[in-house]
């Protein structure tokens, strides 16, 4: 049966059942197409508090929906579905399912901060976008992006030794992202390194892979950093009602 103005209905809300009987009446097939309700039946008051508890999200409750952020947005100019104003509203009213529809583009914010400077209420929309991406990830709605894996590997090495060692970063990154260590471009890179690099530097690099040099007297700095990172992470997880165990 044709549906008038079908473009107003989301495809996933149009439901046809192969075999269905309701109150003794056969409603199978496309003659009995159902349209799922779009009605918002409740507000979830927790989501705003959760996003507001993450760094950057503190001022989300100031928003009055003027749209200055979206109007000034770099990403919105490329992708009209990227709409910070709308997401801020969904977070504030707790419309979670609506919000999750856009989970794969929310993290695309490029942090240009044009919204930050156009917002009349100082909501700090760029911070909200960061907090929201973080929220999606902590809640398990979005997987870690490759860049997040890289950041974590990089940071973990700095935290433990005060230094990074490129070879280890690459190995760790490959491991986290499930990539094989032997890759054509990497083999070629290593070959050329061996051919052109001074022997002494090569030896230093090779050695570093086994002895893991540390910054002198790193211990106290490491302890302080680790304490802070764990504390922040625990606070974030607690605000979201998650158990204490974090990644770091």
């Amino acid at each position, binding site marked *: 049966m044709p549906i008038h103005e079908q473009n107003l209905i989301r495809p996933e809300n149009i439901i046809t059942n192969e075999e269905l009987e309701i109150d003794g009446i056969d409603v199978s097939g496309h003659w009995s197409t159902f349209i799922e309700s*779009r*009605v*918002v*039946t*409740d*507000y979830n*008051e927790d989501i*705003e508090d959760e996003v507001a508890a993450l760094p950057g999200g503190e*001022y989300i*409750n*100031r928003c*009055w*929906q003027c749209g200055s952020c979206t109007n000034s947005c770099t990403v919105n100019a490329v992708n009209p579905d990227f709409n910070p104003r*709308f997401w801020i*509203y*969904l977070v*504030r*009213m707790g*419309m979670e399912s*609506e919000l999750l529809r856009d989970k794969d583009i929310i993290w695309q914010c490029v942090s240009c901060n044009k919204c930050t400077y156009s917002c009349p*209420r100082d909501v700090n929309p760029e911070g909200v976008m960061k907090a929201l991406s973080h929220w999606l990830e902590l809640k398990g709605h979005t997987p870690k992006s490759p860049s997040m894996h890289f950041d974590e590997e990089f940071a973990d090495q700095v935290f433990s030794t005060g230094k990074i060692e490129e070879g280890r970063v690459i190995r760790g990154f490959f491991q986290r992202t499930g990539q094989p260590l032997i890759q054509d471009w990497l083999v070629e890179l290593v070959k050329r390194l061996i051919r052109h690099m001074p022997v002494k530097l090569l030896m230093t690099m090779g050695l570093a892979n086994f002895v893991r040099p540390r910054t002198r007297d790193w211990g106290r700095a490491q302890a302080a950093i680790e304490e802070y990172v764990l504390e922040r992470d625990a606070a974030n997880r607690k605000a979201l009602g998650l158990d204490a165990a974090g990644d770091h």
Partner: protein
Amino acid sequence: MTKPILIVGGGPAGLSAAQALSAAGQRAILVEKEQQLGGAPILSGYAKLVPTGEWAKDAIGGMVSRVEGSDTVDVRTNLTVTNFEGGPGNFIAKLSDDTTVDASAAILCTGFTHFDSVNKPEWGFGTFPDVVTTTQVEQMMSSGQGVRCPSDGRKPKRVAILLCVGSRDRQIGREWCSKICCTVSSNIAMEIREEIPDCHVYIYYMDIRTFGLYEDLYYWRSQEEFKVKYIKARIAEVTSNGDRLIVKGEDTLVKRPITIPFDMVVHAIGMDPNIDNIMIASTFGVQLQKHGHIQHADTYGGIARTSREGVFVAGAATGPETIDDSIAQAQGAALAALSVSGGLSVAAE
């Protein structure tokens, strides 16, 4: 000795006019139809006033006692004016107890009437006990009882305030903005959040008109410090699922219908013209404007004028008005009345 000036109505405007005349040494007769002075803030039991935050019983109550204690103000409660004859400097007013008083001028401070929410039956007032008006919430707060659901006395967990109830609505012949309800509602929302921190307050609006300096003090502050939520939706109907109230409408920002459960729904009721305005207009021979408020004549050339010379007007009698502006207008009206009574030269001597 000049003849006294007649003040009709003992609310903020009438009290302010009486205070001003008293300060000028001019005799006044203050006629009030109710038993006590104070007008809506006292008679309807308002809580904390905008913008001072003072309790109505202290702020307006203070005006009442100053007027009652004045030697130059003759307060007549429980009375109305039934006839008003003569001209500037020589009016004769007949009161409902058949006494007559001479007056050199009159100031109408006859105020307004709260909109009666039963005229919007789709919003549930009178049908569901937990649908109340802003005036009732003011009373809950000023009585010290606190904001509670009338049905069972519980603390609400979620409150909806509907704006523009009895305002900006051609369907019920009210084409004006009542001016104060946005600010009053944001004030009430903050009071509720303060009293019951785990109660969420939602305000459903078409436009927010917390004009002038109320913008940041009320609208912004309610969002920033008290996390009150504002939703652009004119509610279609308020029903019940037998347990809680159900508010239905369209959330215009997400273009989706909403049916949200609430414990309490508050109507931000507007300001109607005084229900007696037709009588008042005919008694004093003044014209009403098209909505039924007392018409201002000559905005730029004179002060507080009506269509009848020697009869002045101030406050919400002319249309929706704030308490502080009513007070200021009445001071202007007192000055205008003094100029008719000859009281200005008396005060100068």
